């Protein structure tokens, strides 16, 4: 097959039982350009890309490569044609090396042996040529998220892909890694690669793409060169209505201290120090942002406060009383809320019904249960009204939670935590991977809670979110709080330096 000069999807329609995921969708990408594919969760982007990659078969529609119709009935066919895909959740075997992972997709001449040296050699050449810098003898489990992504890209390049589909490639990357990826993308499109870039982060889209295609409810709604649009317009087109992220009124009066950490030390699962002498205070009616590259102790910080993580030195006080190493239940009862990072396996029980997850922290108290019997009528009414109030979109409250989209699961967790009206809330990456309308909603709710005197610890990698919402920002670096600054004095470059561990005047 020749190199792909243009790839076109024409009038693609894909129906699932009860839903039309794509209706007469068209899409065109040429070599040497980045096409951004935008849409809210559930708009049909992933379905469309899975059709392109041969994972789904459309009910109708055609795919043209260099103006010739092709049939793509399997991922192998897609790869043979030169279409590579990097999924949001990587398709790598953690216990194998980089070389072995690439070799998984190769059909070797011999049935009983694999020429891995040859594969390793080719990977080396590729990574040199494309400046990807991966040691192919390493195990996947030893690589960072950013490095794993590079392995996925190498896999695609190995099979001579020259159309690359990247499904939310920056969702799990640190700001630095994101910058590197964008730089890298710019260089490969110069060499004639075509890229389809799926992202929720509109500033990245503005930054990297040449054209934009917006989907809503499975249909094309907007298509434009990037030079003729702006973030606000794109957000509006995606949501179908005006989206304005809440502008925050700066407060200058806060209540008393509600959470206080004093010289807290904790070890992670591997027995290494994950918090080393952390001091922090959170006041009533304040959002304290935690900035930092993930893996610098954020998880242990959040879990120490909520009782899931044991600390071995220091003290944590909540409403004036020590909660260090107290049981999770007693800390919940005392009025602590927690939106965890792992929303599907910690924030909710995936196999439980929506209603069961909504009462996960309330089932013990009256009127949800009396003595030990659950009050089913009350629970049903409560959950119905909560789902309506917080706009959690689900077929009904008896749906298993894993069937919901990420944004809706997040709203479910948010509603559960906020409806309990806790005195303090720890929110870890509350908007990771959710669409812009949900971001708007979650931010509004957090600010509303703050204005109702809740003390909030907000952990996130998004600097915009931090600067927009926080009253103060603490920077965490290598298990320690490097600095705490007022948001008024914060800007991205200053935070970026701090996140990299560079404190002004220290060097």
């Amino acid at each position, binding site marked *: 097959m020749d190199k792909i000069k243009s790839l076109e999807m024409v009038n693609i329609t894909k129906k699932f039982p009860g839903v039309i995921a794509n209706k007469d969708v068209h899409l065109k990408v040429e070599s040497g350009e980045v096409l951004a594919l935008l849409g809210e969760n559930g708009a049909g982007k992933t379905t469309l890309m899975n059709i392109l990659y041969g994972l789904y078969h459309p009910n109708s529609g055609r795919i043209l490569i260099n103006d010739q119709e092709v049939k793509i009935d399997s991922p192998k066919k897609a790869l043979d044609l030169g279409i590579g895909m990097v999924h949001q959740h990587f398709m790598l075997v953690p216990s194998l090396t980089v070389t072995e992972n690439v070799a998984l997709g190769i059909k070797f001449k011999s049935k009983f042996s694999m020429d891995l040296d040859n594969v390793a050699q080719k990977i080396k050449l590729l990574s040199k040529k494309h400046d990807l810098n991966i040691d192919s003898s390493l195990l996947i489990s030893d690589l960072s998220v950013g490095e794993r992504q590079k392995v996925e890209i190498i896999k695609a390049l190995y099979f001579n892909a020259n159309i690359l589909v990247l499904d939310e490639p920056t969702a799990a990357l640190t700001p630095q890694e994101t910058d590197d990826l964008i730089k890298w993308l710019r260089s490969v499109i110069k060499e004639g690669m075509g890229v389809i870039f799926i992202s929720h982060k509109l500033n990245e889209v503005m930054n990297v793409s040449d054209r934009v295609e917006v989907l809503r409810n499975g249909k094309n709604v907007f298509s434009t060169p990037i030079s003729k649009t702006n973030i606000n317009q794109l957000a509006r087109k995606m949501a179908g209505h005006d989206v304005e992220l809440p502008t925050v009124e700066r407060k200058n009066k806060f209540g008393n201290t509600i959470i206080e950490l004093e010289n807290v030390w904790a070890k992670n699962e591997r027995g290494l120090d994950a918090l080393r002498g952390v001091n922090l205070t959170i006041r009533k009616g304040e959002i304290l942002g935690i900035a930092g590259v993930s893996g610098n102790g954020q998880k242990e910080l959040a879990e120490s406060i909520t009782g899931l993580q044991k600390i071995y030195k220091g003290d944590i006080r909540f409403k004036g009383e020590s909660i260090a190493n107290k049981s999770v239940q007693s800390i919940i009862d005392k009025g602590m809320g927690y939106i965890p990072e792992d929303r599907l396996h*910690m924030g909710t029980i995936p196999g439980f019904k929506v209603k069961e997850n909504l009462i996960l922290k309330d089932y013990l108290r009256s009127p949800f*249960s009396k003595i030990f019997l659950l009050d089913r009528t009350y629970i049903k009414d409560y959950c119905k009204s909560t789902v309506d109030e917080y706009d959690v979109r689900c077929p009904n409250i008896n749906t298993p939670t894993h069937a919901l989209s990420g944004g809706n699961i997040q709203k479910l967790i948010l509603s559960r935590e906020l409806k309990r009206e806790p005195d303090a809330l720890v929110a870890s990456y509350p908007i990771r991977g959710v669409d812009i309308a949900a971001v708007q909603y979650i931010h509004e709710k957090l600010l509303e809670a703050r204005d109702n005197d809740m003390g909030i610890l907000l952990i996130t990698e998004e600097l915009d979110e931090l600067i927009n919402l926080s009253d103060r920002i603490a920077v965490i670096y290598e298990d320690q709080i490097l600095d705490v600054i007022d948001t008024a004095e914060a800007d991205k470059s200053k935070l970026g330096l701090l996140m990299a561990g560079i404190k002004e005047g220290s060097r």
Partner: protein
Amino acid sequence: MRNNIIKILFNILVLSISFIVALLFGSIILLIAGVNPLVAYQAMIIRPISSVYGLSEALVRSIPLMMVGIGISIAFRSKMINIGGEGQIQLGAVAAGAAALAIPGVPKAIAIPIIILVGFTVGGIWGGIAGWMKAKLSVNEVLSTVMLNYIAFQLYLFLIRGPLIDPSEIAWGTGVPQTARMPDSTIFERLIQQGQRIHSGIFIALIIAILVYFLLWRTTFGFRLRAVGEEPKAANYAGIKVDKYLILAMVLSGGMAGIAGTIEVIGVHHRVLEGLSANYGFSGIVVALFGRLHPIGVIPASFFFGLLLIGAEMMQRAVNIPSALVISIQGLVILAVVSSNLLLENPKYRKKFLGFLMQNN
């Protein structure tokens, strides 16, 4: 409503077909053994349901199966796999037997609850050991329950051959390893006369099935237990003590098997004797799976298996073939029925079936 009828029709059709397929394979075995399959199957299928004796015996066998099946369903709800039913039955039985012999003069209304409680407690402790080892020492419960079976079996033999042996066996010098007969005030009544063995223990089993259903789905305890099984990380996040509920689930599970042993003693044999549990601890696993690991689903599943067990016995007597062949035919039927689960669960196949019906109407 209409959908439900179609679903039931479809399920019956699938189950019948898989049953017939199993019988076809089984007839090959029978033909090799030189037996007319038609005669054999007539004995296996028709006889149990056409005589009072057959039905009574099927129910008698379904009671311990039901109890073990309920126990395994409870353990499964917290994602624990209890292979230790056999040991839990035996220890529950021997403890219940000892308790019954110890309280001869106590009125029935008090004696029977005490005996059941003793059987439950001892079975529960035996299951709880495996739960504790899992929770505190991360010992795989499949391994520990199987090993505990060996220990329980030897303990059981020791008790009925030694300390608990019927004194008259020693006096007469016969030495059959069994306990003395239970006093009348401690045994279940027979429900029908004419020498049939069906006893009032079936009501106990049915009531427990319903109670367990309520416990699992209507109480805060069941909510926690299921939460721990579905996702321990989230359960921990919600303030539930995961370890505690793993252990409790195994205690309950073992306790149910303990009651199964108890009912065998005070309902059927009226003594504790060797070979008391006819592998109910293992057949109960199949019953639980077939009943969708749901305490109510276990009720019909246990009756079906009861019929299958007595049918196999009747076939053996009717055509006089080695019991090994009977067991393999039984295995075939179970395999076929359990594999048909795939079809039963899949709405896609049901839809095709519906389409087929429409065409023919």
